[in-house]
């Protein structure tokens, strides 16, 4: 048999039917659902008298819209958000799917809840009506975002009509230097390939630096595969993965566990398998990075200066001019001279326990800059509980951070947590698009440690100066 990539193996194990032109019907093992992209899909089922084919493989949790303040169960939600959350409540009940309501301690961002509860397992196909479904690729699961019509298709048939993507390998060799994190890796890769560099591909991340990452770090890396244009990101499962999965509520147990493990251990790219595109970065070369513009590809090491539109070519010249105007930046200024007024730590990119530990390590015993608005939003109720137990919540609160309840929060300005016009935020989320965090709000994407450093100094800061 010819050697296969990890992607080839998972794909082949899920093809229900293949047409002559390569169009496949692909079986979906897990379907995650949230309140924003699902109402129209359930409505579609109802209108055509269809039911959910595999409710036991479908998991719903509200996250995008929910406020993250303590009063959210007492009517702290606005009318339109409430309608969407209630629609999800009703749909979950009516169609009999697994559900974590806002009142449940396990509620949180869908991409954090799935792995945490053991719904996400190696070798699976996982979809969700959300582009950051790529996150689950960290387990060696083929996971990608879908639109609402496809949500309806999966609900009704437990399959998707798909054509296979091409294989791309992103290798990070060697080790990271102190102060450099998974977030810096993933941003550096996008900086190198551009936001369309992965279009048409599924990326497999590999190399020593990736192997050395925890599951949290691997999820951060895969989370942003979509920002590089790829359909999905994958990391081959290994002992770190198995260790993380073992004992989770929905992970296999006993003999099932042994059987699963035997298969999972075959999930790696065979020697000599073909990749259509290969990108290699040296772990030692990656520095703490920040974004300066309004596309995740606008990445530079923190030691750099703001570029000029003329530094680019083609359509990017105008795009850079527009970005700089939007961001209120002047070419040539040092990135470390950019003053910020808001810090957001959270999101499905960086809202896990390890992220909070990394930020707390920088903040311990210190106070944030006067006038700074800083918030930490744990990715799930369980992350929040663990952080409280570990004493991290106290470190954040004593430093001057707001300690919130779980949700997407300021990652996307669909709930009350938003930037006001002209406010400038160091954010651990994944998108710096115009208006992403609020109308005319300005976003600089950074790692949790870099966000903490910025909160202390009031400007974008090289975290290596503080460790």
């Amino acid at each position: 048999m010819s050697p296969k990539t990890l992607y080839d193996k998972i794909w082949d194990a899920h093809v229900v039917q293949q047409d002559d032109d390569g169009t496949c019907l692909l079986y979906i093992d897990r379907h995650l659902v949230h309140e924003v992209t699902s109402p129209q899909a359930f409505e579609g089922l109802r209108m055509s008298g269809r039911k959910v084919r595999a409710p036991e493989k479908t998991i719903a949790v509200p996250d995008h819209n929910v406020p993250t303040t303590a009063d959210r169960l007492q009517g702290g939600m606005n009318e339109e958000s409430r309608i969407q959350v209630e629609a999800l409540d009703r749909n979950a009940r009516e169609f009999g799917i697994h559900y974590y309501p806002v009142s449940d301690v396990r509620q949180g961002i869908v991409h954090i809840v799935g792995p945490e509860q053991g719904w996400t397992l190696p070798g699976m196909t996982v979809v969700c009506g959300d582009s950051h479904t790529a996150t689950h690729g960290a387990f060696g699961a083929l996971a990608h975002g879908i639109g609402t019509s496809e949500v309806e298709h999966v609900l009704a048939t437990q399959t998707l009509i798909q054509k296979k993507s091409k294989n791309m390998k992103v290798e990070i060799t060697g080790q990271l230097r102190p102060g450099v994190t998974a977030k810096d890796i993933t941003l550096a890769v996008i900086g190198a390939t551009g936001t369309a560099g992965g279009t048409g591909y599924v990326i497999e991340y590999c190399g020593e630096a990736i192997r050395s990452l925890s599951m949290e770090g691997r999820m951060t890396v895969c989370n942003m595969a979509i920002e590089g244009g790829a359909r999905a990101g994958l990391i081959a499962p290994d002992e770190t993965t198995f260790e993380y999965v073992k004992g989770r509520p929905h992970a296999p147990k006993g003999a099932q566990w042994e059987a699963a493990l035997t298969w999972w251990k075959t999930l790696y790219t065979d020697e000599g398998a073909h990749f259509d595109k290969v990108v290699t970065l040296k772990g030692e070369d990656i520095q703490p990075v920040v974004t300066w513009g309004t596309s995740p590809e606008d990445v530079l090491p923190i030691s750099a200066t703001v570029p000029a539109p003329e530094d680019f070519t083609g359509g990017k010249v105008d795009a850079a001019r527009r970005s700089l105007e939007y961001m209120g930046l002047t070419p040539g200024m040092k990135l470390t001279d950019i003053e910020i007024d808001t810090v957001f730590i959270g999101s499905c990119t960086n809202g896990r326990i390890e992220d909070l530990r990394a930020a707390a390590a920088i903040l311990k015993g210190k106070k944030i800059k006067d006038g700074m608005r800083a918030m930490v939003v744990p990715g799930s109720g369980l992350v929040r509980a663990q952080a409280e137990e570990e004493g991290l919540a106290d470190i954040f609160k004593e430093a001057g951070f707001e300690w919130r309840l779980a949700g997407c929060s300021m990652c996307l300005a669909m709930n009350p947590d938003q930037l006001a016009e002209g406010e400038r935020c160091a954010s651990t989320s994944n998108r710096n698009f115009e208006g992403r965090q609020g109308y005319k709000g300005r976003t600089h994407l950074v790692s949790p440690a870099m966000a903490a450093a910025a909160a202390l100094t009031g400007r974008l800061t090289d975290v290596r100066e503080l460790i």
Partner: protein
Amino acid sequence: MEKFEKLTGIAAPMPLVNIDTDMIIPKVFLKTIKRSGLGVNLFDEMRYDREGNEIADFVLNKPQYREAEILVAGDNFGCGSSREHAPWALKDFGIKAVISTSFADIFFNNCFKNGILPIVLPAEQVEVLMKDAEKGANARMTVDLENQEITTSDGQVFAFEVDAFKKHCLLNGLDDIGLTLEKGAAIDSFEAQAAQARPWI
């Protein structure tokens, strides 16, 4: 779903690269539980000022482009989120085809599910079409899906590629859930076999 066969209409030029789904429909408008009615907020932050007044020099506010049915756009159109509200908003406004050098993957798929035809062409050809679109309302472009051809207002013809299955669905207005449900037996047997091979799922 509405059929897409042949369209002759006004094309609006949007040369910006990386137009993302947040620009197409800002998320404050995603709190609907319906598919319709998003057209008025298409490109909202570029189209209106904070008070809700139209920004005169935004392309779709110009008199000659208000009825546009085709967009000619810069590279990597539709990047960002998976939300189908972006094609819903385009469709609700009246856009039926988008032409660019490249599209984000999920957005590209979502278009087909909503009767919108996304067309990928090489940069030189997109440039010619962009110039044609800049001529305004008299410059009607024709998109012929059956023959996979675009004809500019002055008669230049460009061929384009489209996936055969997607073309078939679009031409006939087919709902692919219905098509897949017809393959129920194949799904049943896959499930039975997967339950043997991977019983823990």
